[in-house]
């Protein structure tokens, strides 16, 4: 079994990269001296602090849509994966259509979402859902279908019901794979939300980060675009971290895949 690395040992390589990136950006932006094209890190931080109320309110709106989209993906994706795992006929009939979620350009369906839901939270959350559901379906399905055949035999030998097989064997053994899907979905849900806000977001006091990015760009405030992008990335990172933590708590004790993350 591997020794867990200390917090410091885990944290220094990415922090070093971050510092190097900030320094490079600073030198580059200062030399270029075109704040409209490339603001300095200092200018980005300054505008982020000055506009913190707007940014935080936008973050709240975006977080709400991203979380709704993500939870719909998690619930719907796991349920769809379970349904698809039921029989190979069901799988052959429906699986090709789930790939739709993976391949549909969200920009192409945005007008439809606009017609059905109107602009605003439901349409944005739907974008987040469409963009993020496929990895959950695929992860769940892969996990459910790769159950140890010997254990399947064992459950059959002891006359386990379909229900018992699902809850006591298949679902638990699929958990690592489901979490892999959820991790990907968490990041995608934020991307889907921001893109959704570009396309079907509402302007005004409750506008999200995506809308802020669009209006800052229209005003030529590149520093504010950067600040909003930064906040959106931090949101994605935070969601990823929470999923990781949940995976560790749930699986830490037994899954080898969780012992070295």
């Amino acid at each position, binding site marked *: *079994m591997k020794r867990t690395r200390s917090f410091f040992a885990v944290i220094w390589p990415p922090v070093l990269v971050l510092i190097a990136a900030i320094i490079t950006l600073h030198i580059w932006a200062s030399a270029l001296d075109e704040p409209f094209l490339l603001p300095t890190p200092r200018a980005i931080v300054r505008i982020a602090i000055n506009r913190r109320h707007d940014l935080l309110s936008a973050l709240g709106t975006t977080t709400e849509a991203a979380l709704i989209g993500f939870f719909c993906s998690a619930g719907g994706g796991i349920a769809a994966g379970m349904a698809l795992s039921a029989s190979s006929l069901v799988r052959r009939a429906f699986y090709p259509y789930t790939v739709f979620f993976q391949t549909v350009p969200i920009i192409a369906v945005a007008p439809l979402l606009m017609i059905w839901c109107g602009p605003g939270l439901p349409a944005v959350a739907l974008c987040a859902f469409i963009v993020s559901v496929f990895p959950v379906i695929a992860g769940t399905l892969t996990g459910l279908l790769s159950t*140890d055949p*010997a*254990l399947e*035999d*064992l*459950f*059959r*030998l*002891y*006359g*386990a019901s379909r229900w*018992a097989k699902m809850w*006591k*064997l298949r679902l*638990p*053994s699929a*958990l690592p794979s489901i979490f892999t899907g959820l991790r990907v979905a968490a990041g995608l849900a934020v991307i889907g939300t921001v893109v959704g806000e570009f396309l079907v977001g509402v302007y005004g006091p409750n506008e999200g980060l995506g809308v802020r990015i669009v209006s800052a760009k229209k005003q030529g405030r590149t520093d504010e675009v950067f600040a909003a992008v930064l906040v959106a990335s931090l949101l994605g990172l935070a969601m990823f971290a929470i999923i990781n933590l949940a995976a560790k708590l749930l*699986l830490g*004790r*037994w*899954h*080898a895949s969780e*012992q070295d993350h």
Partner: protein
Amino acid sequence: MQIANLHKVFDNDVVAIENLSLEINPGEFVAILGPSGCGKSTLLRIIAGLEKPTGGTVQIGQGKIAYVFQDSHLLPWRNVLRNAALPLELAGVDRADRIAAAREALSQVGLADAVQRYPAQLSGGMKMRVSMARAMVTHPDFLLLDEPFAALDEINRQKLDEQLRKLWLLHRMTVIFVTHSTAEATFLADRAVVLSARPARIVADLLIDLPADRPAAIRSTPAFAAITQKIYDALERGGA
């Protein structure tokens, strides 16, 4: 247990078992040997009802069956106690009873102190013991084992063989033990059925005439060596 004219042909037209008949008495400890890939495991799976024969019948009457696989195949998210209790849980036995039965089964394989551990924290030999306890927890009438200790090192394997023999002396269930080790068969069983290369036919059906209670040292006696040799010769005749 009556196995009559058993046939098994796989989907790809490979004949695994051809016209095999075998009678096993209640409480008998039978070792089944044969070259790799000869259909021993298939025979065991058919007896357990995990696979259907193409022809012929297996009659085992009433009785509970337990099966031990080549690897321990434990549920990694359950601790040792809850792994051992699984068959009773699936049978709907209530919690207190199944936990008590699992504790007893685990103490019979020497794991009374490890009940709270998780499979990832156990050695290969310990995992296999949990697997045996899980099989014994229902007090089966038939215990089927498919090369259960093949992946273990020699010392662990011999220890587990001794443990299994003791369990059998205690419970006297019918045991069918598939192996390709002649010494393991001699040590464990009272009867060795040797199968030929595919399709599996019976080459020899040998009585192992050793005392019921077998200390570890019996392995170095001349009688033991003679029986092992007889099984070996039969295997060679079968085309191993």
